[in-house]
């Protein structure tokens, strides 16, 4: 092989390798590779069993109940299709509100209740003043989007 040809061969091989790599990445994103699981996934048994994992979704309106002991909180996490009850002992983040996003880390109990060690608030990418927000909420009342 002449030096020129050799060089082309090497560059070609490099590019081909990169192409295959890109293919693998795309294939990987077809599967679930996630920071948290949604209630639907849990319902479909796609979430880990007997192991600590994260669950994400919206706090269902009116579901937050503080227990007698004052530190334990129960609420329901939903992705509008399915929902999972969550139990948590500890202090909640400021942004924890009903109807807002939440991510909780913990284990799924045998009774289907998710026992959380940590609760984080997740918000979306929308920033707007309260008045505008109210207006938007009015308009979109029915179609509440599932957070990504």
């Amino acid at each position, binding site marked *: 092989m002449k030096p020129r040809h050799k060089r082309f061969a090497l560059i070609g091989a490099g590019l081909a390798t990169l192409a295959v790599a890109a293919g693998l990445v795309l294939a990987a994103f077809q599967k679930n590779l996630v920071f948290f699981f949604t209630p639907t996934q849990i319902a479909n048994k796609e979430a880990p069993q007997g192991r600590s994992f994260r669950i994400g979704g919206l706090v269902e309106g009116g579901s937050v109940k503080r227990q007698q002991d004052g530190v334990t909180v129960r609420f329901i996490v939903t992705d509008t299709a399915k929902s999972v009850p969550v139990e948590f002992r500890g202090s909640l983040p400021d942004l*924890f509100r009903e109807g807002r996003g939440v991510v909780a880390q913990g284990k799924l109990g045998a009774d289907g209740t998710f026992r959380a060690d940590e609760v984080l608030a997740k918000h979306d990418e929308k920033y707007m003043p309260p008045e505008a927000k109210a207006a938007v909420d009015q308009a979109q009342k029915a179609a509440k989007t599932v957070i990504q």
Partner: protein
Amino acid sequence: MTTRDSDTYYSGNASPSAAKHRIHWFHYASPQTFYPLAGRLIPWFAALAVLLGAAGMYVGFLVAPTDAQQGDAYRIIFLHVPAAWMSMFLYVVMAFWAGVGLVFNTRLSAMLATAIAPTGAMFTFLALWTGSLWGKPTWGTWWVWDARLTSELILLFLYFGFMALQAAIDDPRRADRAGAVLALVGVINVPIIYFSVIWWNTLHQGASISMKSAPTMAMTMLLGMLLMALCFWMYSIATILARVRCILLERERHTDWCMTELRGTP
């Protein structure tokens, strides 16, 4: 791939005639002309940075409305987002100039890369710091190992690695070239940072501003953010130019033009 490195290896400043041909294109790439030009530009960029910064702060903290979800805590956005943008942008610019230096053996572009690194690292740190400050009230934690946060941390390490590598090498020419290799290898991290929120579902929010759709953000908020971003940009240019001037003097102190320059400013 061999032609590439062979160019850098043998030609470059080894061919004064080539420099003469390029002179129209690369007029300002010659240190003698660049040095005074940079000196003249710095005050302008610095002034712009101050003005834009003042305007951005004013809009961000006094004009922009409270956010419906987060209240006033969201105002940290005016530092966080511009800093995060600059951290990625500067890395790409740095890698670009380092690569140009490696391929064409031009001294100035390598020095530019060296000068960019500390500013880039500073903005990366700022993004991480403001981000975790912001995370505590909003998410309820300083730090989580999600893809956006981890990859941004890796970016900081890459900046550090670049600087440490250059500091460890005495010979400036070798330092430039070794740094360039590292910078180029690290570029792959930047798209990962940017797209991480799309590829994985992260705790970090997705993009509020994108090319494809209208911003999901009130106009005044957006304005404040853009002003701050411009301010950071101008600030970066000013500091980088100043740093390049220092590096130039240090490296070329034996040349005639540096001698006269140094004597001129006692």
